[in-house]
Structure formats: structure tokens, C-alpha cells
């Protein structure tokens, strides 16, 4: 087992290295760059831009820049933003709360509602409810998140006026209730895709449990149906659920990016788009690495959980 874990860790490290290299090269080889934003300032000249580029070390070969970035990165220094000179980690940290708030809320929504739908669908397999939910889940997976966001804004904000159209809180307010009001629409929108996935997953998991002997036995012993189901389904499905959560991370991050854009949510997705717009490479790289690390950890957790349950994997 230890060997397997070490092997997977080693592979993950190589993976991150590869990710960083691809990301860095793509960014650096791109035309334009961080100085573009200054070009239209009054009185800006090519001479001044050249001087700033020299100062920032932007005219060195890409590979040198990459190695230097990597060296700093390995030493725990993620660099500083081109825009405000703040350490990248600090910037990402300051946007983390907003994104986590959104992601955690929407995951809770998705897991609770999605699981309920999934379990009920499984118990009533073949019913109208089951069939409707199957179709709805597929449609939900096909709706572009941002468009769903626009429709939600149109209906619930512009027409009904129930919720604000964007931002995390009202300037000058900021009470918990105010946050909650702002959170409803984006969390709902972000939860949609996950909800569909979770309901599908729980349906399958429940079906597997229902067909297992011990459930039949328990029911035969006369234990109440609901209690048996709940105990066994939750007990058996929990670990794979964590796995699924891990594997769902990239989708969730990507979805958060789009949702944050539509709802002007001040999180990491918004930061990513802003930083990309200003060619703030250190921050863009930092965000790419952060999401890659999350994804790799998610995958690793999933793999290790499977390996724990299923010894055959380790031997491969």
C-alpha cells in the first residue's frame, strides 16, 4: 500500500510540473502582454514601455523565466502580482473565501437535493418520477451555466425582484442576511449541474444497495424499510461519494468561474478573468496551479479510496 501511495504521489508531482510548464509556455509565447494596458495612457511611448519591460524582466527567454519561476515556486514563493505587487498567495487567499462560500453552499444544495432525488428515483424505479428526473437531469447537464444564470437574473431579479442581480453583498451593508440574499441565485445556478450528477449517481448507488443480500435480509427480518435503506445506503455510498466529490472538482471550479462572471461574484473565477485581461501572469499561473493542485488532490483521494476498498487496484 505504501508503495502504491508513494508511486501515486510521485506521479502527481510530475503531473503538476507538466501542468506548470504547459501553462507558463502558453502564457509567455502569447502576443501582447502585461504592458498592453498602459499603451493607451496619455503620452505613453514605445521607449517608456521598453524600459518597463526591461525592469520587469519580460524580455528574457521564456525558458529562463520559467526556471526562475519554478525555482521560486519550489521555495514556496509564488511570485508577486504585476498589478498590485502583492504576493500571489495572498491575493488568491483573499479571493478564496468568496469562491469557497459559493462552492460549499452549492455543493450542499446539490448533494442534499440530488441525493434525495436519486434515492427516491431508485426506490420507485420505473415510475413517472424516476423517468422525469432522468430526463430533467440530462437537460440540466445540457444547459449552459451562464445562460441559466442569465435566465435566473431575468426571472428572479429583474422581474420578480426577489434577489439581487449580482455581487456578494450590498455596499455598506454586509449583514449575514444580506450575504444570504446575494448567495441564493449564484449558488442555485452553480448547483444545477452537480445536482444532476449527484441524483444520477445516488440512483445507481441505491439500486446496488437495494439488490444486495444484507438489505433483503434486514427487510426480511422486519426492520422498517426506511431505516434499513437510510442506514445502509448512506453507510455504503459515503466513501464513493467522497470520491465523486473529488472527481467533480474541476467541473465545479470551471462552473464557479462562469457563475462568478455572470453574478460579478468577487471570487477566484472573477480574479482569473481579471488577471487574464491584464496579463497578470504570476496570478494566472498561481490560479492555474491552485486549481491543478485541487484537482490532483481530488484525483489522488479518489484513487486512494478505491485502492483501500479494492485491493486489486494496488497490484496493477
Amino acid at each position: 500500500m505504501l508503495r502504491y501511495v508513494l508511486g501515486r504521489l510521485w506521479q502527481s508531482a510530475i503531473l503538476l510540473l507538466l501542468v506548470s510548464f504547459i501553462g507558463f509556455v502558453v502564457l509567455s509565447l502569447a502576443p501582447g502582454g502585461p504592458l498592453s494596458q498602459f499603451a493607451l495612457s496619455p503620452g505613453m511611448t514605445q521607449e517608456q514601455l521598453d524600459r518597463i519591460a526591461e525592469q520587469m524582466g519580460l524580455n528574457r527567454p521564456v525558458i529562463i523565466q520559467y526556471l526562475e519561476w519554478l525555482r521560486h515556486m519550489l521555495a514556496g514563493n509564488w511570485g508577486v502580482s504585476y498589478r498590485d505587487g502583492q504576493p500571489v498567495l495572498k491575493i488568491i487567499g483573499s479571493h478564496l473565501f468568496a469562491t469557497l462560500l459559493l462552492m460549499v453552499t452549492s455543493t450542499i444544495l446539490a448533494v442534499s437535493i440530488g441525493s434525495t432525488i436519486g434515492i427516491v428515483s431508485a426506490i420507485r424505479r420505473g415510475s413517472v418520477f424516476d423517468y422525469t428526473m432522468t430526463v430533467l437531469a440530462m437537460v440540466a447537464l445540457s444547459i449552459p451555466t451562464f445562460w441559466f444564470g442569465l435566465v435566473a437574473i431575468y426571472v428572479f431579479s429583474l422581474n420578480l425582484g426577489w434577489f439581487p442581480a449580482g455581487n456578494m453583498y450590498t455596499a455598506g451593508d454586509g449583514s449575514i442576511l444580506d450575504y444570504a440574499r446575494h448567495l441564493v441565485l449564484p449558488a442555485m445556478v452553480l448547483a444545477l449541474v452537480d445536482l444532476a450528477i449527484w441524483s444520477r449517481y445516488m440512483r445507481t448507488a441505491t439500486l446496488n444497495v437495494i439488490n444486495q443480500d444484507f438489505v433483503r435480509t434486514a427487510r426480511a427480518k422486519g426492520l422498517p424499510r426506511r431505516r434499513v435503506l437510510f442506514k445502509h445506503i448512506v453507510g455504503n455510498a459515503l466513501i464513493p461519494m467522497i470520491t465523486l466529490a473529488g472527481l467533480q472538482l474541476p467541473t465545479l471550479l470551471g462552473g464557479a468561474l462562469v457563475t462568478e462572471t455572470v453574478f460579478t461574484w468577487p471570487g477566484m473565477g472573477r480574479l482569473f478573468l481579471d488577471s487574464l485581461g491584464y496579463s497578470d501572469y504570476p496570478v494566472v499561473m498561481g490560479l492555474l496551479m491552485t486549481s491543478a493542485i485541487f484537482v490532483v488532490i481530488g484525483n489522488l483521494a479518489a484513487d486512494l479510496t478505491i485502492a483501500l476498498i479494492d485491493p486489486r487496484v494496488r497490484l496493477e
Partner: protein
Amino acid sequence: MTDDPNRNSPFRPSRRTALRLMGAGAGALMLPSAIGRSAALAAGADATGQLILAFSQEPTVFNPFMPHIEVDEGIHFAVFDTLFTFDPKGELYPVLVTEVPTVANGGISADGLSWKIKLKEGVTWHDGTPFTAEDVKFSLELPVDPDFRSWRTTGYNLMKDITVVSPTELTWTMTQPFAPMAAVLGSTWIVPKHAFDGVADRNSAPFNNAPIGTGPFVWKERMAGDHIRLEANPDYHGEGPFIKTLIVKYIPDLNVMYTQFKSGDVDVVGLQWITPDHYEEAKALPGKTVEIAGAGSFESFALNMMRPQFQELAVRQALYAAIDKQSIIDALYYGIPQVTETYMPQQSYYYNPDLPKHEFNLDTANKLLDDAGWAKGPDGIRAKDGVKLSFTNSTTAGNHLREQAQQFIQQTFKEIGVEMTISNLPPAVMWGEFWMQSQFDTCIVGMNTLLGADPDNSDYFMSANSAARGGAGQNTTCYQNPEVDALFKQGGETFVPEDRKPIYQKIQELIRHDLPLLPLYQYAVVKGRKENVTGPVPNVNNRIDTWNVNTWKM
């Protein structure tokens, strides 16, 4: 406007005596607001209330000497002070100095090379340290520090022998006459020397993210990606401030910003303002003041003069005649911007009002091209000597209104047998080498080529200033006209505004005639604030709303 002769005469040296005066404004005038210092001194302590000012971009650069964009200056004006700066009429008024130096008051020598300034007494930094001439000397030298990532060196690199005569007096000499120096100083915010004491790398000084100034507002905190909180400086040396807490809120989406203004969550709508399509509705909002304000930038259809298609004047004239400017302004921009024929803001003292007026006329355009020998080919596109009248047009992808105007222009060009292909680019690519090195055919661009109220923009139009030809400026259309070059040279060495005016008006006339860029309109924006907020005043000579934030009240 500024050409009221009586108003400025007491301050203006006679032409005979003043060989060289400060370059920029129509003379140095002290505004009442700046004079009434003693009366206003107590205001900062009595400041009340909280004002929320929204920007659609996020201010991130707080050291005013480091590379920044205009939204950053929104904070600079609140936290720092300049020595003097421009009022809406283009005249300089003193801020940290007792009076704006002129030849008449002995601040500038007759040859324009020796400068002497006298600072106000009793000014302190936000941390209580006294403000002295040493700070000014430090600030003027910082931009040319070779290890410092400075915004620009223009002007500062001509200063030498900066000498602190006393804690409130400073002198320096210029290595050559440089008329726009006053405009440079007009946007030079003074930073404290002591904030950099013992700092090894000035590029990463703690000061850069926790600025200390002498300005009307004290830096409190920044929530990155969200807002910046500033508090009234109770010891401010000038008028005001009258507001206790100033929150600068970052709202990246203009619709959300407008919605929050409508609902009263935002007190003043700043940079990028209210979108034109909301103007009618905004005007009718109860309890809000919504008005159109001129801005210093102008929109134009820039041609790359190195391309064979654009060599002939007739082609450029025909293209200009085929742009339905009025429809673009009236329909797409809801009539808000003003038609213009030049880069010079109409509020400027140097604006030339007598330029020929553009007329949209496809017949004229067709005739110009027919007469010049550009005949339509079988595909309906005109060509001459193997050169097809076909080119790409680029602008910033994602600027919706401009993209709409662009597609509209594409259609009218097609009607005169000109093929324009749209190839828009993300901003980071668009304004990189693509623009600076003239890699485009044509561009739609909005820019302000002027430093403050100074009329000199030789960097944009002098032949030698094209980067694509090895020059150092931003003449990206690669425009070349020896007569314009000579006039720019003359203007840069002339210091009396009355003498400069005809020179720069002539330049505008020549550029209007040659059409290296087809002028579309001068920007105007829809500004909004709550009715009870007073103070925000448009100023085409300063880039951002907060230029006079010390006088804002609510």
C-alpha cells in the same frame, strides 16, 4: 470659456517680457477654493457621513510613480497631493505650493530653465511626519532611479541640480526648454521620502500597498477584488474633506453598477459610468442627478499609413465620407458623445473650431474613388494597380458598443466597394505589439493623447515617433508630414499660450486634412450621483472623477 482675456490678465505676463512661461494652461490662476485655506482648515475634523463611489475597474496600484491605469489615479487624488494641478478650464491651481511658479512671480527664470517653488507650511503626512522639500526632491528623483520600475521618465529626466534650499523651498534647472513640464508636474503626486528609508527594493516597498500621503483622505484598508476604505484626514491642509468615510467599490459589471445606483446602494457612479442605453431612464430617476460630461478622449478610425491601400488622400477622404458618424452617435450611443474633427477636446483652449465638417455621403465617397481610378472588380471590390481596397479592422474584443459601430461601418464601406474584414483581439493582444508596432491595417481606438491641458502630442504625430520605423513614440498610424514636424518642434519651445495656440490649431488643421485617422467623436459619459452629493465636476484635463474629492459633500 478660457479665452476670456480679462479674467486671467492680472496673472499673465505681457508677451514682451515673458519669453518662457509655464507651458500648459492658459496661465496660472489661483482658484478661490485653494486660497481659502485658513477658513477651510477645520473641515476635515468635522467631516461626516459615508460616501460610496463605484468604479468598474479595480484600483490596484497605489504608488503613483509605478505603472498604473486611470482608475488607480482615482485613489491617488484622494490620498496624495500634487504640487499644483489642472482645473476644468485647463488652468493650474496650487495644492502643495503657495503659488504656481511663473515668470511673473519669479518662480521660473526668463529662459525657462531655472525653477523655484515654495511649499505650504505646516503640512504633515498622514502618519504625522512633517512634509518638507526633501519629500518633493525625493519624489522628483524617484522616477529616474534606474532600479525603480517607474511609470514614465518624461520631463523628470530633464531635471538636474534639484536643491533643497529650506524645508519649504526647492530649486532645480532644466537641461533644455520643455513646455509640457508643467503638465507633467500637474500629475506628479508627491510621496513621502521616509516611507522608503532603509527599503532595499523600492519596487516592493510596503508603502506601495499602504500608501501614506498628504491628501484629503487617509488609507484605511483594501479588500482585494471588492473595495478600498479611506477616512477623512482631519489635518488636511486644503479645503475639506467633508466626508468622513469614502468607500471606493469595485463593481466589474456596468449593469450591476447601474442597478446598485438605482437602488441607492451606490452614491456616485465613477469610471465607465452609466451605459448610454440607460441614460433616458437614469435621467428620470427620483433623487438622482444624472448628467452628460465631456471627457478628454476621442474615438477614431486609425489607418496604418504604411499600407498601400491608404497612400492616396482620396481613399482616406472617401472612407471618411462613407462613415455615417451621426447615425452611430445617435442610434448606437444614444446621442451622448460629440462629433469631432480632431483629437483636441472641445473644452481645450487650443481647440480649433474651424475645421471642415464631416459629411456622410456615399455619392461623394464613390466619386472620390472613381476619380482616383479605383474601379470595382467582378467581386464588387475596388482595386487600382493590383492593390485591392480591402483591409482588416481591429478593436478590443468585448467592447460591445464599439463592435456594433464597427459592423455598421463595415456595411457602409461595402456599399462603396470597400471590403473591411473584422478581426478583433483581446485587449492584452490588441494594445501590445499589434498596436505599438503598427501591425494592424485599421483600428478603432479611443485614446487621450494629451498630458493634462498641454496641447503637445508630438509623440503621436511626429514622423520620427513611429515604433514601426524604429522611433520611440506612439505614432502608430506612421503618419509623416514635415510641416507638422516643424510646427511641433516650434510649439514645444514656445511657452506663451497665445503664441502656442495658432501653432497647435494649424497642426489640427493639417492632420484633419491628411486624415491619418478618421476622427469619430469626442467621448462624453453619463455621470450619476445622489442628489444630495455635491462636488463632482467634470474635468477633461484630469483623467478621473476624484480630482477634487476633497470638496465633495453630502
